């Protein structure tokens, strides 16, 4: 079937504008979905592994009672195929030649870290290096600040208790550093097997044994099920997801990527639908001829199905050809930002949504108009038949809408998102119908004439069906693109606001009550004033309404806060970034009650008035819940699950004070002076963590930009598809107008005006619909607050008018460059 085959070949198809639009739209849809799915997958894995690296493992078991856990526990873990490792953390004095210093020691086993890497410097001047393991026996790695404090050098010896260790490396960053408030600065790291020879650990020493576990999630879960009944209150099992500082930001980024991807798919689907309909219309003559020559309806159906399958293959192969390099590029960026190599993780399962997209686009959008080709009358070869009225397409549209929203839902997994978008679109189409009706009734009165304005208005009226369709698609495209731009900028603003340049990057812990004022003066004199200083008392929540809390709360609710000591505080005023959800804040003079963080309250099922009993040391206090508040966990300030009123039940309990502040990079040496003056105050340096979060945000932003570019490309393809829909009619009219003596400039002006008007109205509607959608998304999904975006409301209609005017001018090219006669003949 050489001729018939050739008739249906992709290379031949490519010469047809409508097919090109379909193929490009398909490629964009597949590429977008594949890139996002692959990258989200990669991001998830990379970040979970980097989040895991905050623990240096997938799970940690901490024994705060100063005693190692039974050896069988670790044997059991290894028998189950888990990797294990061990650390001992304690504080002690170390001695150099010129002095001594309180340090926080982390003694690690050979396996450390199970996840993540350690950053070191071989000497003060050498470049930083990333290594996969800790110091060997007889070695000690120290924080650079300690070297300066004790005037030591690499190669010198440091005495830890009765053991001399050689300083071999500078410890810049440990994967699990910085998140534990009990860690003391400056840090040194040594081998776990050297600990006993130091003799510093005595019965009753303040020491923490930490066990590291890594392996597959289900195995870890099973192990925990086995372990849990044996755990004592002083044992704490910690997973990655708990207390993660930026998980919320990431979640939002992921949602944004999904939203973006959905919009790209939506736009591409619109392009596929418009172009396929156009293509089907252009194929009617061919089909009529094939029928005349004896091809049956079934044969026609098969012919075009085969063609659709070919398009699908081209779309999928082409889409992947775009997606894979893009994905590679994004992973490279990711690895640059994280300053470490990132393994490619190409999950074939992540390609499923891309394949689904291609199939759904083809069968829900491209197929219906092509299927109708089967019923083209053969008689068409002798006499042109009435074309489609558009009514036949209504069931197709219903199918398409259901398909696309099903796809978006399946893909983004967010009903709220689908409903927001659908709501925005329905609103848009309703307003559009209204505006269209108004326009048609106004334009009907315009009389034609030699004036460009009048010609433009008459043109709009004459093409009212096409004009309305174009306006709908333009408005929808603009709405989707504007939604995305708006959500993106508010998302980025949000992050920026979350981590401003002067965000606190150091914590001071363990401030003795009597030195609070002095410490505040120390730092404010040096230009780094402290944020609010909060008292901190360690205690456990033990009873809920006079029942032991472990009984009162169902076992399914694995509430980490219950497994460990909580930091309790008292405060007179609600911190700026906390928000009261229920109840009332402590009135002045009130000494009763406790304010609980909202999420914890939710998980424990707490209501106002519930009585909470805390065990602090050997004492118990019981207070009713008087308010529930949200906390900004990622604010980098001290945050508390439980807050009491001043002079309440907590006031007489032994405690220390905590605060955070911002210290510029150049002022780091002040820490040495501070540590010398206040050796018992612990300084927690979290500037590394902040930098890292900022890096990740930057990375995600780049990914978002890349996705945005794909989406704008999809928007352009939609526009091209819609414009090409009326191209021939307009060209024929232009040629006729010229034949009848219309001047080129008149033609150009009236066409550009017609399109500009179209673009302006579409722009206004699109932007308003975008605001509505953003309102819904912002408030419902991204938990933000809504404001009007004047910066886009004004320029977008103007831009869209300009852009469409240029589009109009561009599509006139053939009319202007070729003689009217030639053009009319070509359009025959």
């Amino acid at each position, binding site marked *: 079937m*050489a*001729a018939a085959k050739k008739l249906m070949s992709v290379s031949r198809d490519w010469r047809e504008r409508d097919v090109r639009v379909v193929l490009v739209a398909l490629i964009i849809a597949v590429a977008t979905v594949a890139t996002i799915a692959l990258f989200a997958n990669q991001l998830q894995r990379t970040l979970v592994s980097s989040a895991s690296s905050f623990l240096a493992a997938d799970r940690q078991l901490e024994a705060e009672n100063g005693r190692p856990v039974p050896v069988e526990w670790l044997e059991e873990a290894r028998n189950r195929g888990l990797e294990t490792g061990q650390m001992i953390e304690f504080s002690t004095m170390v001695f150099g030649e010129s002095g001594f210093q309180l340090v926080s020691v982390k003694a690690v086993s050979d396996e450390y870290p199970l996840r993540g890497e350690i950053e070191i410097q071989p000497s003060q001047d050498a470049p930083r290096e990333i290594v996969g393991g800790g110091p060997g026996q007889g070695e000690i790695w120290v924080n650079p600040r300690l070297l300066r404090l004790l005037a030591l050098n690499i190669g010198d010896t440091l005495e830890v208790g009765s053991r001399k260790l050689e300083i071999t490396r500078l410890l810049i960053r440990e994967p699990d550093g910085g998140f534990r408030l009990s860690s003391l600065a400056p840090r040194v790291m040594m081998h776990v097997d050297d600990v006993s020879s130091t003799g510093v650990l005595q019965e009753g020493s303040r020491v923490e044994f930490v066990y590291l576990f890594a392996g597959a999630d289900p195995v870890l879960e099973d192990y925990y099920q086995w372990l849990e009944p044996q755990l004592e209150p002083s044992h704490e099992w910690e997973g990655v997801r708990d207390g993660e500082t930026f998980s919320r930001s990431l979640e939002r980024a992921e949602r944004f990527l999904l939203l973006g991807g959905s919009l790209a798919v939506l736009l591409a689907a619109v392009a596929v639908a418009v172009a396929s309909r156009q293509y089907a219309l252009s194929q009617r003559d061919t089909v009529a001829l094939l029928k*005349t020559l*004896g*091809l049956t309806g079934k044969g026609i159906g098969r012919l075009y199905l085969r063609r659709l399958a070919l398009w699908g293959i081209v779309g999928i192969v082409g889409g992947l050809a775009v997606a894979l390099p893009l994905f590679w590029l994004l992973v490279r960026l990711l690895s640059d930002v994280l300053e470490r190599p990132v393994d490619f993780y190409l999950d074939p399962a992540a390609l499923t949504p891309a394949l689904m997209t291609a199939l759904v686009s083809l069968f829900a959008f491209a197929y219906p108009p092509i299927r109708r080709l089967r019923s083209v*009358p053969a008689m068409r*070869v002798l006499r042109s038949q009435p074309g489609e009225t558009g009514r036949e397409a209504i069931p197709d549209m219903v199918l398409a809408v259901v398909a696309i929203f099903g796809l978006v839902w399946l893909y983004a997994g967010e009903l709220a998102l689908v409903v927001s978008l659908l709501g925005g679109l329905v609103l848009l189409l309703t307003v559009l119908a209204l505006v269209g009706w108004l326009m048609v009734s106004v334009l009907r009165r315009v009389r034609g004439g030699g004036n460009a304005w009048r010609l433009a208005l008459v043109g709009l009226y004459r093409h009212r069906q096409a004009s309305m369709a174009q306006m709908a698609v333009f408005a929808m495209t603009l709405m989707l693109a504007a939604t995305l731009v708006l959500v993106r900028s508010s998302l980025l603003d949000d992050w920026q606001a979350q981590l401003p340049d002067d965000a606190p990057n150091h914590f001071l812990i363990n401030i003795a009550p009597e030195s609070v004022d002095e410490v505040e003066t120390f730092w404010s004199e040096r230009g780094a004033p402290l944020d609010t200083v909060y008292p901190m008392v360690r205690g456990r929540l033990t009873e809920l309404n006079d029942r032991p809390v472990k009984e009162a709360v169902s076992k399914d609710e694995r509430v980490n806060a219950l497994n460990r000591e909580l930091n309790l505080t008292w405060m007179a005023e609600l911190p700026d970034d906390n928000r009261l959800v229920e109840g009332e804040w402590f009135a002045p003079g009130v000494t009763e009650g406790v304010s609980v963080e909202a999420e914890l309250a939710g998980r424990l099922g707490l209501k106002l008035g519930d009585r909470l009993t805390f065990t602090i040391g050997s004492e118990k206090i019981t207070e009713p819940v008087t308010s529930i508040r949200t906390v900004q966990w990622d604010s980098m300030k001290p945050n508390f699950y439980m807050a009491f009123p001043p002079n309440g039940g907590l006031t007489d309990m032994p405690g220390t004070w905590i605060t955070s502040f911002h210290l510029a990079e150049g002022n780091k040496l002040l820490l040495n002076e501070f540590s010398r003056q206040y050796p018992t105050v612990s300084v927690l340096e979290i500037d590394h963590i902040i930098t890292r979060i900022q890096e990740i945000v930057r990375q995600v932003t780049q990914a978002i930009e890349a996705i945005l570019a794909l989406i704008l490309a999809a928007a352009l393809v939609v526009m091209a598809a819609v414009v090409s829909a009326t191209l021939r009619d307009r060209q024929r009219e232009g040629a006729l107008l010229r034949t009848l003596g219309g001047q080129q400039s008149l033609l150009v002006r009236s066409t550009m005006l017609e399109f500009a008007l179209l673009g302006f109205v579409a722009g206004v509607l699109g932007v308003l619909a975008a605001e509505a959608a953003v309102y819904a998304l912002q408030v419902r999904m991204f938990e933000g607050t809504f404001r009007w975006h004047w910066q886009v409301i004004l320029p977008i209609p103007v831009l869209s008018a300009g852009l469409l005017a240029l589009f109009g001018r561009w599509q006139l090219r053939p009319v202007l460059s070729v003689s009217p006669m030639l053009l009319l003949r070509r359009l025959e």
Partner: protein
Amino acid sequence: MNQMTDLRKADASPMLRVAGLTHKVRLETDTLTILQGVNLEINRGESVAIVGRSGSGKTTLLGLLAGLDTPSEGTVELDGSEISGLSEDERAKLRARRVGFVFQSFQLLPALSALENVMLPLELAGIEAPEKRARDLLERVGLGERLTHTPRQLSGGEQQRVAIARAFASDPAILFADEPTGNLDNRTGQSVSDLLMDLNREQGTTLVMVTHDERLAARCGRQLHIEAGVLTEPDTAREMAD
């Protein structure tokens, strides 16, 4: 198929038999009658011209005779098959085997070369060695040197020659031609109609041609006139009226 073969053996039966053919089109407000009670018999090997002015109904009649459309009333028997009772697909199969077409606007597929355009009906009808037959026919219409040219690279006259070659490719029993010279100048029209008549004679095909060109009509063995949907045959007008 068996029935068709049997009827073909009975050479005496007419190629085309039309009885009481009426065609109406429903408009928004009323119904328009395009053809009114047409009766007609065309014998095998005959060449018949249907002449009439624009809008007289001749193209509609051609479409109904060829089974491209179905009438509101009446019957059309083509080569022994009552086609108004056939489904669209059955009519398509019948056309593939028995019917050839030549159109005013040539109706070549612009994407295919001359050779491929001629091969297409042969492939659709499942005829073996389509290329050989297509080449021979293009040689015969004088386009042996232009096999690979696409319609755009051919003149109007050349395009119509390709269309004629295509029409005869599947060796049809009957050929329908709709204003075959309507889009051509006089001289080209003349040579194209020469070719059409010659081939028709050589192949012994029945020819039904619609035209408003009296000279072309005069070259056919029989002329029918159509006006306002009513068909008359000058010589036998009286008989037809009865």
